[in-house]
């Protein structure tokens, strides 16, 4: 009886360790894990295309994270891992597309539009300031004179 109680007590006390053991792989190496997650934030999950593989829990995202972790354990540099991914999934896997001929419009298009818009605005404003106001017609002159006479009359 006493032995059984002791066994129960030991098992009960050991329970937290048993659970902690299960979660261990994820935090075994916090430095590595940090590097894995940093790179995972740069890689697109191809199943759920607006998420990175760090944010997504899709099967493929988990697999790719494991792949990144494995490669880092084997000593691959971030550059090598990114090359590995683009060789299989193309540039699309990169959350930040690389600057190259095909992506120039993507990178610099908005800036170009802004510059064009500013240029147009400046030209318009200059033009408007340079234009002398149209001269009044005789009719307008007469009305203006009448109004002026009227206000001057009422002010006195």
């Amino acid at each position, binding site marked *: 009886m006493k032995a059984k109680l002791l066994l129960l007590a030991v098992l009960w006390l050991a329970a937290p360790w048993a659970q902690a053991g299960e979660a261990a792989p994820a935090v075994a190496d916090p430095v590595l894990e940090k590097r894995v997650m940093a790179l995972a934030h740069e890689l697109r999950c*191809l*199943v759920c*295309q607006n998420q990175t593989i760090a944010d997504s829990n899709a099967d*493929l995202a988990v697999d*790719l994270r494991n*792949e990144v972790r494995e490669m880092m354990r084997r000593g691959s540099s971030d550059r090598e891992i990114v090359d590995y991914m683009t*060789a*299989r999934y*193309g540039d699309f896997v990169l959350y930040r597309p690389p600057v190259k001929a095909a992506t120039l419009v993507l990178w610099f298009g908005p800036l170009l539009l802004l510059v064009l818009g500013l240029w147009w605005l400046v030209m318009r404003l200059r033009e408007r300031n340079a234009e002398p106001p149209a001269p009044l017609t005789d009719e307008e002159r007469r009305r203006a004179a009448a109004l002026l006479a009227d206000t001057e009359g009422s002010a006195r």
Partner: protein
Amino acid sequence: MGEQVIQRQRSALRFAVPLGLFFALVILLGVGLTLNPREVPSPLINKPAPPFELPQLHEPDRTFSPQQMLGKVWMFNVWASWCVSCREEHPVLVDLARRNVVPIYGLDYKDQRADGLRWLQQFGNPYVLSAFDASGRVGIDYGVYGVPETYVIDKRGVIRYKHIGVLTPKIVSEKIVPLVKELDRES
């Protein structure tokens, strides 16, 4: 009088330019909306098929490797018993296999062996054989992200075509069959 004409032209331009820009934008967005974001161009086209060696689905003691296929044009189809779209695609593959156009090899991707076997028994087996990729490692090498995916590989072991998603009779008759015939003529 000349000035009036210019004035009128200018005010017409005032409407025409924004309207033109608006339509250009509509066309641009319209094209963007009709594109399929799932169709990511594969960097593997015209590259050698990544090598691997995997156990076969039906005979676990025997392996399959793409190197065994050198000298033949073949089709490589990634499938899984858990994949709903694969079921939709399946009759197309069965039909293609019956016509003996091109040997179809399968990759049973991230599946349970028993499930995969039962699936083929239930729906028919269009594959010469299927390789069994339990971990999905080979899938990663082939850039698989949405099952089903299909590759056409030429005699030199180079990937010549990749289709992501369900194969339709139209894709088979318009793309795959002509391509296979063309590749068969290559030495």
